C-alpha cells in the first residue's frame, strides 16, 4: 500500500504542462482536510508508458488540441479498465474551444459517449457537500465578463461509477496558485478537488 500520488499526464500533442501548480494545490487541500496519506509532491507521467499504471488517479489538462497517439490511447484504455480514474479539465474557458472539441472526440472514441453527470451525483457529496453540483470558478463568476457558466460536468459512467470525469469549467486555472496563498482566501477554492480524489479512490 502506497500513499496517494497526484499524477499529471504527459501527452504528445498540445500543452500538457499548462497546470503547473495544480498538483501542489490539490495535495495541499487533501492534507489540509483529510487523513489520506498523500505524497508531498506530484509526478509527471507519460501516458504511453508503463509508469502510468503505478498511479490510481490521472489528471490531464491543456489549452491546445488533444490528439492521442495509438500507444497513448491503448494505455489510457488499459488504465481505466484496471480501475484508474481519469480527470480531464479544459484549461480554456470557452464552449467549443480546440481542447474541448478534440479532447471530447478522443474520449468518445476511446470510451463511448460522454454523459452529463447530474448535479445530485454522489461526487458532490463524497467529502464536501456541493448542493448545486460543480462549484463555479472565478472565471465563470466574474473573471472574463462573458457569464459563461458550465452547469454540469461530463463523464464516462460504467458499472454505476464515474471512470472518466471531464470538466470544461477550467478548474486548472482556478487551482493555479501557490498553496501558501490560500491563507488569504475566505474559502479554499480547491475543496472540490478533494471530492474528486476521494470519489476516485473509494468508489
Amino acid at each position, binding site marked *: *500500500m*502506497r*500513499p*496517494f500520488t497526484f499524477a499529471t499526464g*504527459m*501527452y*504528445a*500533442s*498540445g500543452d500538457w*504542462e499548462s497546470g*503547473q*501548480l495544480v498538483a*501542489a494545490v490539490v*495535495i*495541499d*487541500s487533501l*492534507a*489540509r*482536510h*483529510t*487523513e*489520506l*496519506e*498523500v505524497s*508531498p*509532491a506530484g509526478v*509527471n507521467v507519460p501516458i504511453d*508508458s*508503463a*509508469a502510468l*499504471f*503505478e498511479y*490510481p488517479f490521472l489528471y490531464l489538462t491543456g*489549452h*491546445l*488540441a488533444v490528439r492521442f*497517439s*495509438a*500507444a497513448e490511447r*491503448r*494505455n489510457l484504455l*488499459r488504465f481505466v*479498465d*484496471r*480501475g484508474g480514474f481519469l480527470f480531464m479539465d479544459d484549461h*480554456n474557458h470557452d464552449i467549443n*474551444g*480546440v481542447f474541448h472539441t*478534440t479532447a471530447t472526440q478522443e474520449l468518445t472514441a476511446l470510451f463511448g459517449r460522454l454523459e452529463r453527470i447530474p448535479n445530485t451525483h454522489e461526487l458532490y*457529496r*463524497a*467529502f*464536501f*457537500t456541493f448542493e448545486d453540483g460543480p462549484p463555479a470558478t472565478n472565471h465563470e463568476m466574474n473573471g472574463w465578463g462573458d457569464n459563461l457558466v458550465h452547469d454540469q460536468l461530463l463523464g464516462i459512467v460504467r458499472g454505476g*461509477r464515474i471512470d472518466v470525469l471531464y470538466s470544461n469549467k477550467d478548474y486548472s*486555472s482556478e487551482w493555479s496558485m501557490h*498553496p501558501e496563498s490560500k491563507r488569504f482566501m475566505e474559502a479554499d477554492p480547491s*475543496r472540490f478537488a478533494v471530492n474528486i480524489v476521494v470519489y476516485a*479512490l*473509494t468508489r
Partner: protein
Amino acid sequence: MSAVDRARNAQRALLGTLAADALLYAALALGTATLLVIIVDFLSPLPLEVRRAAIPLGVLGAIVTGAYRLWRGREVSSLRQVALYLEELFPGMQYALVTAIVPAGSSDPVLLDRAVEQGYAPGALGPRVRRALVRPVAGLLAILLAGMAFPSQSVTRVLRPRAGDVLLAPPRGAPPNRLEPLVVVVSSPAYAGLPSETLDDPSSVRALEGSGLLLRGRGAMIAPSESLGLVRGAGMMPARVVGDTWSFSLTMPRRAEVLRIADRGRNRLLTLEPLLDAPPTVTLRSPTTDSTYPLPTGTLLLDAVAGDDIGLAALWFELMLTTGGGERFTTTTRILGLASPGGAPGAAIRQVLRLDTLRLLPGDVLNLRAVARDRNDVTGPGEGSSDTRTIRIADPERRDAIPIVPAAVAKLDTTVLSQRMLIIRAETLLVRQRRFTPDSFRVQSQRLGERQRMLYDRVQALILELETATDVGFVGATEESMLLRVAGLAMRRAEDHLVRARVAAALPEMYRALEALDKGRTSRRVYLRGMLPRIVVDLNQIRLTGTAKATVSPRTPRFALSDPRRRLLERLDRLLPAPGRTAPALGDSLTMLRADALSDAPEVAPPLASALEMIRAGTDPLPQLRRVRRMLERAVESVPSLSAWRGGR
C-alpha cells in the same frame, strides 16, 4: 437407282434412327434420375447441395447412356455392314447388294442392280425403325406422367433448386412444427455492394451490422398467428402473415444477440452475429516525428495511406493551426489534398506543404494528421485517422518562461551507440583477421560476444521497464518494447555467432539489432517542453488545518470493475457440472453464452460453436468446453488490477 445408292439411302435412314434412339435414351436416363430424386426428396427432403448436384449428374448419366447407344449401333457407319443387314432382311437379293458394294471377281453391275431391285422392299425398314423408337418414347411419357403426379413445389425443388426453397418441402410432424424449416434472407446495406443471401435453417446468421434480415417460415394457417412471436429482450414482435407464410423483419444489431422464436410452447433460438464495418485504417508516412522549427519556413512532405474493409469514400489531410497564448488561443482547421477513392479498398495521398504559406508565428502549433471516411451510410460513416504529428514554431521568449529540467540521456540512445560501436569493432576484427592466429582471433571474437551479451541484458532491462509497473507487474507490450524484443533476438543470434568466432555471420544479425534499436528510439513521440517544477508541500505543517465542514466516514478502496470474461467463466462453470442436463438445454445455454462471448471474448466464440456442433451431432462437447474454460481463465488472469493505494478518511 443403283444397288449402291439403295444401300446408302438405307444407311442414312438407319443413322437417323440411331441418333434418335441415342437422344431418346439419354432423355430417358435424365428423366429417370430426376424422377428418382423427386421421389426421394418428397419422402425425405434432401439438402440443397444434393439437389443442386442432381441435374448435372443426370445430364452426365444421359451423355453416358446416349454414347452407349451410339456405340452399340456403331456398325451402321459401315456401308458393308448395312448391306449385310439388308441382305439378312431381304434374302431374295441373294447377296447381290453385298457383291455390288464389295466387288469380288468379275461381276456385271447391271445384273446386280436388277437382282437387288427384285429382292429389295424399301418400305419394310419403316416398321422396324418405329418399333425401335417406341420403347424410349413410352418410357419418357411414363416419367412425365409420374412427375405430374407430384406437387409442383416438389418438382421445382429438384429442377430449380435454390436457397430458401426448403419452405416448399412437404410439412412433417403432427401437428406440424411451424418453426421448421426457417429461411433467413440477408440483405446487406447497399453501400457494401454485396448480393443478398438466403440461408436455409440456420442456427446463426452472420451479416454486416445494419443488414436487413427477413425470417420466413410456413404454416401460418395452421394456428392463429398471435401465438407466433419473436422474443427480443422483454418485447415480443408479432409475425407478419401472407397466405401460409409468416415472417419477421429486423435489422442486424450492433451487438451479438440471441433471438427466440416462440410458437405454442415450441421455441427456436437464432444467434445474430453482426460483422462490424471497421473504420478505415490510416497511416501517416510523412512526417514521421514531431518537430520544432526555429522559423516558420521550409516545406513538409505529407504522405499518407489508408485502407478499409468495405471501401473508402474520402481521404484528406487535416491541419489544425493553433495560435495565441495565456488563456486565449485561436484554432483554425484546414483540409488539404482531399481525395475521393470511390469505394476502393485502399488509397494514398501526397502533398507538399509550404510552411510560409500558413503565416505561422513563433509559439504557434500545427497539428496534422490524415483522416479517411468509409462509405458506410447506414451505421456510419466510419472515420479513421492517423497518428497526429505536432509541429511547433519555437518561441524564443517563451523558452525563458518555462522551467526546463534537463532530461538524462535516454538509456536506449546509449544502447544504440554501443551497438554501433560493437559493429565497428566486429568489422575491424574481420578485416584484420589474417594478422591473428586462429586462437587469438577466437578470443577477440568471444570478447565481442560477451559485450553483445551485456548489451542484450541492458535491452532486456529496458523491455522490463517498458512493460511492467511497480506493484502491478506486466501491463502489456508497447510499440517500443516490441522493437526491442526484435533487437534482443538478433543480439542473441549475433552473440551465438561471435562466441563461435563466426564474425562474418554475426554482422548481419548485429545490423538487424541496430536497425530495430533505431526504430525503437524514434517510436517515442512525447514532446517534453519542460518538466513541471517539483513543488513539495509541507504536509506536517498543514495536516488537518482545514476548517470547512465535510462528510467524513470510513471508505473502501476502489477496485477494478469485474472483467466481463470473468462473468462468462462463472456462467460456463455453472453449466459444466450440471448432471442430468439434457443436450437441448445445454445447447440453448451455450448458445446464449456464445452470443455474449462474441462481444466480450471473441476468441472463445469459435470453440463454443464447435461445442454446439458436437451437441447437435450427439457427441460429447466436454473436451471442447474445457478448452474454452482454460482460454477464459488465462485471459482473466492476465488482467491485473492497478496497484493498491490507501483509502483513508
